[in-house]
């Protein structure tokens, strides 16, 4: 059984059709890349997987470990092991990143029927994961994403992914707004999270992220559905030919 | 013990009551307006002049400040009209001048020729006498709270002006309403204006107030404005009354959907002035901007009281009030943003900044928010303080003398409210007035 099985997914937002019969199957241990031009529906797909309000599912299905994902609340999906790294992480004034991380980790543990993590254990756990991402502990004392640079926000997202240990991580344009050094740090962090027990979907507009996070399977998305799938070489082909050829095919 | 105290009428209130009696006999016109006048007179007779216990007049105790009421101005004679000829505060600006002398519309001083298509201009007295249908719109905008200045204006409603712009019509040049006061003895004037903009109409309006120094005249004006859907209005206002005058003014605006509206009031004159504004956003998607500049000195007291009423969703409003206060002047700003239930996606910001240039100046600010919808962005900021010493020092260190440095800083401070005026000539003329004010400061 695939970890994520999306069939003929159709989604509308604001009366406009955005996903138009999307099919995708992701197995545990795989890294998929979804590439596509702006407006092809990539971000919508990630939001729909995570359960963001405001989207109307008009057809199709999405199953996570065989369970109907679309019937679950966003926090239930998170507890099941679905993580979305936001393209634009939200700012939460007054709440320190540390407090937020602990609250999230414990909320997920509780829903999974696990015991809450003790404060010293948690600190050890965060310190270890943060160091791998070159995250300064001072940064964790600041309010969640408030005044963070683009790179800090994205590293904070990956840190949260590391702490929540999801079965499926969806990275929505994690490369946007990053310079090459920040990109390398983030990619390194993601690579450390690659595991036989975990799948990752990398959503990106550009090929450059895929130099650092080498996917097993590449999908090209256009006009709300996946129009072609292949190996890593597909990303290179795309880089050469551009999206226009694929859009015509859609 | 809370004994019922029947307020004793002050001399000013007694005089106003007597004037209302006389006016009742003298004015007689079409029924709806007579009724409106009578209702306002009755409310005024009942509540009298406002005092500091009336929340809206907390900082302007009119009962204490208005010692006596000047007699009602007679219609201007030939000499008065002649004297008014040279009183245009914006002589260099091409505009359609509409002149009121001591509250009476004077056609011979006004430019009523070659009106743009769809533009109607009516002397109010004549429209009332003829029972013109547009007079039915007078008194249609009713503020939430009773206001004595507006009630007095309505009780003595007799002359003024009606400007109506039909759907899609456009003013080619600004319409300039000039309120002049002339004469050597103090008189009371009550002018009323009604401006109606049809859907998609575009207008540029200037309203100015001028009069002689040293004559304690009392000018009370009210302007009602209806802006139709998709209309656009730029409104610039200059209050340059004589230095001992009492100026009470009300602006009531009912604004439709998708309107672009800007209001620039500049207050420089009068010993005691109050400008009360109600902007009611009645249609969705409207953008309103207000930027006010106040330059006060001596013992001047100026009160700007503003209510921005967001009654429809998706409107944005920006209010900026800047006051430079010198001498023993007192600058007051009361600004209230209301967001009604259901007026979601309102984006309203208000800021008031006072610059105290002397130890005896006083700044009172009351920015209020009253919010009944949750998906809104509202905020206000208020600051008051003296000129920034570190900035001054920077100027001094560059060899700029203190006076000049102060003038530059003050000019840039109030200039922020003036520089957003779209009309080049008006902007420059008002900047020059500000700069002259600073020169006179010496």
């Amino acid at each position, binding site marked *: 059984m695939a970890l994520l099985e999306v069939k003929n997914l159709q989604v509308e937002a604001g009366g406009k059709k955005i996903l138009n019969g999307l099919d995708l199957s992701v197995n545990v241990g795989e890294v998929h890349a979804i590439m596509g031009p702006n407006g092809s529906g990539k971000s919508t797909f990630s939001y729909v997987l*995570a*359960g963001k*309000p405001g989207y109307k599912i008009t057809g199709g299905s999405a199953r996570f470990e065989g369970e109907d994902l679309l019937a679950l*609340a*966003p*926090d239930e999906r*998170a507890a099941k092991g679905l*993580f*979305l790294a*936001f393209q634009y*992480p*939200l700012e*939460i*004034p*007054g*709440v320190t990143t540390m*407090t*937020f991380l602990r*609250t*999230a*980790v414990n*909320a*997920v543990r509780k*829903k999974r029927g696990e015991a809450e993590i003790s404060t010293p254990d948690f600190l050890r756990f965060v310190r270890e994961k943060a160091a791998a991402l070159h995250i300064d502990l001072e940064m964790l004392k600041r*309010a969640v994403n408030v005044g963070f640079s683009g790179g800090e926000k994205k590293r904070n997202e990956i840190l*949260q992914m590391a702490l*929540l240990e999801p079965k499926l991580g969806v990275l929505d344009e994690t490369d946007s707004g990053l310079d090459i050094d920040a990109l390398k740090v983030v990619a390194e962090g993601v690579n450390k999270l690659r595991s036989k027990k975990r799948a990752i979907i990398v959503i990106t507009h550009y090929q450059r992220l895929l130099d650092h996070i080498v996917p097993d399977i590449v999908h090209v998305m256009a006009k709300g559905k996946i129009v072609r799938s292949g190996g890593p070489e597909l990303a290179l082909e795309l880089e050469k030919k551009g999206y226009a050829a694929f859009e015509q095919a859609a | 013990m809370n004994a019922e105290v029947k307020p004793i009428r002050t001399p000013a209130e007694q005089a106003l009551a007597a004037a209302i009696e006389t006016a009742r006999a003298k004015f007689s016109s079409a029924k709806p307006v007579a009724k409106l006048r009578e209702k306002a007179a009755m409310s005024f007779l009942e509540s009298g002049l406002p005092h500091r216990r009336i929340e809206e007049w*907390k900082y302007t105790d009119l009962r204490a400040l208005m010692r006596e009421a000047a007699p009602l101005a007679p219609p201007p004679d030939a000499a008065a009209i002649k004297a008014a000829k040279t009183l245009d505060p914006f002589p260099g600006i091409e505009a359609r001048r509409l002149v009121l002398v001591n509250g009476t519309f004077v056609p011979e001083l006004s430019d009523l020729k070659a009106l743009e298509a769809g533009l109607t201009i009516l002397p109010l007295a004549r429209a009332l006498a003829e029972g013109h249908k547009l007079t039915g719109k007078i008194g249609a905008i009713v503020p939430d709270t009773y206001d004595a200045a507006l009630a007095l204006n309505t009780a003595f409603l007799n002359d003024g002006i009606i400007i109506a712009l039909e759907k899609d019509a456009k003013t080619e040049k600004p319409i300039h309403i000039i309120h002049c006061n002339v004469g050597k003895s103090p008189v009371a004037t009550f002018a009323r204006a009604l401006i109606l903009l049809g859907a998609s109409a575009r207008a540029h309006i200037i309203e100015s107030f001028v009069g002689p120094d040293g004559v304690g005249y009392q000018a009370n004006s009210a302007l009602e404005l209806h802006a139709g859907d998709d209309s656009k209005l730029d409104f610039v206002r200059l209050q340059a009354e004589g230095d001992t005058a009492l100026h009470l003014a009300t602006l009531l605006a009912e604004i439709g959907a998708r309107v672009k509206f800007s209001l620039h009031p500049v207050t420089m004159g009068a010993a005691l002035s109050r400008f009360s504004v109600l902007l009611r956003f009645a249609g969705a998607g409207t953008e309103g901007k207000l930027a006010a500049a106040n330059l006060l000195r001596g013992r001047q007291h100026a009160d700007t009281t503003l209510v921005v009423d967001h009654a429809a969703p998706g409107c944005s409003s920006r209010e900026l009030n800047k006051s430079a206060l010198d001498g023993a002047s007192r600058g007051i700003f009361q600004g209230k943003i209301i967001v009604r*239930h259901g007026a*979601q996606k309102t984006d309203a910001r208000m800021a008031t900044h006072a610059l*105290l*240039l002397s*130890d*005896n*100046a*006083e*700044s*009172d*600010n*009351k*920015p*209020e*928010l*009253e*919010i*009944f*919808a*949750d*998906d*809104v*962005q*509202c*905020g*206000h*900021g*208020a*600051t*008051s*303080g*003296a000129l920034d010493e570190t900035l001054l020092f920077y100027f001094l260190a560059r060899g700029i003398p203190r006076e000049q440095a102060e003038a530059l800083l003050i000019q840039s401070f109030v200039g922020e409210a003036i520089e957003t005026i779209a009309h080049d000539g008006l902007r420059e003329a008002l900047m020059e007035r500000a700069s002259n004010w600073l020169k006179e400061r010496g």
Partner: protein
Amino acid sequence: MIHLGKNSTSRIISKGIAAASSNNTYRGLVSAHRKATGARNFTNCDSLLIGNNCGAHTVPYIEAKNSSAVFEHEATTSKISEDTLFYCMQRGLSAEEAVAVVVNGFVKDVLQQLPMEFAVEAQKLIAISLEGSVG
């Protein structure tokens, strides 16, 4: 907050939360008298709205009677945005936990000034009074 003495400093932080059908009003006077030279005040008055039947009112009176007084006042109203709730829920927090996190962040400036025991109590009280205000 009435400033009579020279160089006196004051600070007001008001955080109002209105949920369901409640109304919250801030009314405050800041005044500097003639002789209170160098007086300073900073006022921050924020309202958080939860749900669309509640109301927030801010009525500050700011009276500066001498030029060297420096007064600053800021007020904002905001709501807990859908996006923020979704972000928290994506990290596994339930809707109520998400609201609690945001509200605690909102009132933090005030609660952190309280002695520990009070702060803990206050936090619990907030949690109780917000129960059922979402979802």
